[in-house]
């Protein structure tokens, strides 16, 4: 921090907007900054406030026109809370529990598997053969056509296909080689995120159906893991690429294996990135609707389905109950965000900044 030179005589306007000392803000700037932040706070908080008071309204309070202030405009009523947590508590708590288990497990898996892959892509050189991959995809199309159009048993086709694939690979792949690089693998993984979930829902459903895992936590956890892998890999790849290699190299010189290096050196260095990625993936899992709807029937239903269910169609929307569900949905995430925020404030994507 340096003081202002003594001969410097700022005008009033300059005094308003020039910082008095380095690292501090001038009065004018302060006013502008706080005003903007408060305006934005209002924009963010008003819908939440409205949600909150709606959860205490009756049908008449909602339909009778806007009422803003509890106790003054309208008498708050606990009927929606009562309904969800006393009368129907079984359904509500089950969905809540499902959401928590599924999100935690899927996030944990995705972050673990994803960051391992991201680390490998950032440090190891891979050269897969495009010809082999194309062969693989062609075999797969063959399998699907056989099952879809001719109704052959799936396990039979798969067995034959595996054999055919290995035969073709021996015969063709070793002769023709188009080598891909880490960048291509990364792009391939990331691009998995682009397809809209509607198209993959039915195939995924049929997959789990064939192994009898529908309406179980496992099905949803696995699906969420894969759906979110691209994001983990992307963010963590950026992150790992930026960590200086020196530490890892010296660890390896000391005889540490790749796994040890990853666990003891790399992961502790990446806490910020891991925390941010975890939070993001957790939120995406927590809020997902379409896949959960299809993979669950009763036992594994999650909270977003409960939200959607509050639209009673021709009886209008049960705004009050819906508000309750949304509010209780926010609470765990706020909690998680506060826990993780210590790490995050140290820097998300520190990597990309330096890279």
């Amino acid at each position: 921090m340096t003081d202002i030179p003594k001969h410097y005589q700022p005008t009033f306007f300059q005094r308003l907007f020039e910082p008095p000392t380095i690292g501090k803000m001038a009065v004018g700037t302060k006013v502008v900054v706080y005003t903007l932040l408060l305006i934005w706070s209002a924009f963010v908080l008003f819908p939440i406030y409205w949600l909150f008071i709606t959860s205490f309204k009756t049908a008449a309070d909602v339909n009778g026109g806007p009422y803003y202030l509890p106790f003054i405009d309208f008498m708050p009523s606990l009927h929606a809370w009562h309904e969800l947590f006393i009368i129907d508590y079984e359904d509500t708590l089950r969905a809540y529990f499902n959401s928590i288990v599924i999100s935690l497990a899927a996030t944990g898996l995705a972050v673990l598997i994803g960051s391992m892959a991201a680390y490998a892509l950032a440090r190891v050189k891979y050269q897969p053969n495009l010809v082999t991959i194309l062969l693989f995809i062609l075999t797969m199309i063959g399998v699907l056509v056989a099952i879809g159009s001719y109704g052959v048993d799936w396990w039979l086709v798969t067995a034959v296909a595996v054999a055919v694939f290995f035969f073709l690979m021996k015969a063709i792949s070793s002769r023709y080689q188009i080598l891909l690089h880490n960048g291509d693998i990364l792009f391939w993984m990331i691009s998995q995120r682009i397809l809209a979930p509607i198209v993959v829902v039915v195939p995924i459903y049929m997959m789990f159906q064939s192994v009898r895992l529908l309406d179980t936590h496992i099905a949803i956890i696995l699906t969420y893991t894969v759906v979110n892998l691209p994001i983990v890999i992307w963010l963590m790849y950026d992150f790992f690429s930026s960590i200086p290699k020196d530490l890892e190299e010296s660890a390896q010189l000391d005889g540490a294996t790749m796994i040890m290096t990853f666990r003891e050196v790399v992961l502790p260095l990446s806490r910020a990135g891991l925390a941010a990625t975890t939070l993001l993936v957790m939120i995406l899992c927590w809020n997902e609707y379409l896949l959960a709807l299809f993979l669950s029937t009763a036992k594994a239903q999650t909270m977003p389905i409960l939200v959607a269910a509050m639209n009673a169609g021709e009886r209008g929307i049960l705004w009050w109950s819906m508000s309750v569900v949304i509010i209780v949905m926010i609470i765990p995430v706020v909690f998680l965000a506060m826990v993780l925020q210590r790490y995050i404030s140290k820097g998300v994507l520190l990597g990309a900044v330096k890279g």
Partner: protein
Amino acid sequence: MKLGFKSLLAGVAAAAVLGTAGQSFAGEFDGVTVNILTRPGPVIAKPLVDHGKVFTEMTGAEIRVNEVPFAEIFQKLLTDWATGTNSIDVGVFASGWAVELVDGDLVENLDPYIAKDDKIDIDDIAPYFREYNQKIGGSTYLITVDGDFQMMYYRRDILDKLGLTPPRDWPEYLKVAEAMHGMDLNGDGEADYGSCIFKKRNAQSYFAIGSMAAGFSQTKGTGEGLWFDPETMKPKINNAAWAEAFRVYKETGKYGPPEELNHDIGDTRSLVQAGRCGMVIDWGDIGPLSIDESGAAIKDKIGAVIMPGSRKVLNPASGELEMCTDALCPHAVDGVNHAPFAAFGGWAGAINKKSDAKVKAAAYAFLSYVNQAEQSNVDVTMGWTGYNPYRNSQLNDTTKWVEAGFSQEFADNYLGAIKESLNHPNMASDVRIPGAQQYTGVVLDRELARFLADEITAEQALANIEAGWEEITEDFGRDTQAQMYKLSLGITN
């Protein structure tokens, strides 16, 4: 044993178990679990849960009601049944949706069950629901739990004050709506609306337009078919009748709430219950809803009447709208051709063909139990159930309705309007063929929305619909579609 042998001969093993199912006795279905899929909510689902508990005590079968959001029920059920997952034994959904499932051979034929059932009293079910709604291709596949068709409701107190009578045709409707529009109908000091008809896209608007068009277009009775020519499957939509219906529909928006284009039926109903609408087109629900706690503003102020018809109807020969004559509209009353539209068809239960015989028997016994007069005659009087009357005994006896809180006068008026509609020989049937959702829910609905949003003219919209429908028909195969359509109209030749 005799009964069982007969059924086995008929090749329906399930019916064997059912031979005894009609006479329920405790413990009959011990250890059987019936999984039902339906919409969330108190509406439709809650009565199933409640009856399920009683049913469990009676028979030992556990009734498990699974609820998924309304928009996703059908896809969900279809995926479950078509992929052979079969975690659902009974779907309770719009009866019209079943056609697709029956076409895919996924639904149990209920004829043998009904033949053995001495409690359901099938003849008490109103003819339209018994003969058209529950049947597909001549066999019964569905058990109705809710009877749906549209009527018109009006604010009796306001019409009396203005010295007007309930409209019988659409020009009158518009006139009355105009007269009421802007009045304060519920005494809160704010101007209210003459007419409320939901117009949101991808919601229920294609049911409202069906109700309007039917009066202009269908004159010769249910068998004539509102949507297609049963012989050729040519769409009967690109004509003066539908163009007029489109114009009327848009015109009603002038006397409606400003946001009506974004209102689905739920929004409309909450306005009605708040006393803000002079007239409204709706299913039977408005009656019970008006005696509900939240309908206090309209209690005993509502009247119901058969859906307005038309004095001018389409003459297929000339392609013009012409004044009704005895030859042109044989079913007209006082020169007005009515064609009440059985929109949506009502909620009904269908049983998965692939479920175990024992489960199917229990499932049927449960659906029959819900449908039986003893239970349903009480259910239909309560607004929250979402069940509307479909049995003659429900319509002929006002006691249960008065017990539920109807005034005698309104009960007579409401049931009178229902009876007039239900027994109308010119009742218009919904599209009940494969692809129904694409014909109406996608093509018709979308073009109607574009017309309402002023993107295209009525003529363009109708031409687009015709082209779109032809494409779908070609896709499914014209002959089979025509066959299905004929069957759905009860034409068997």
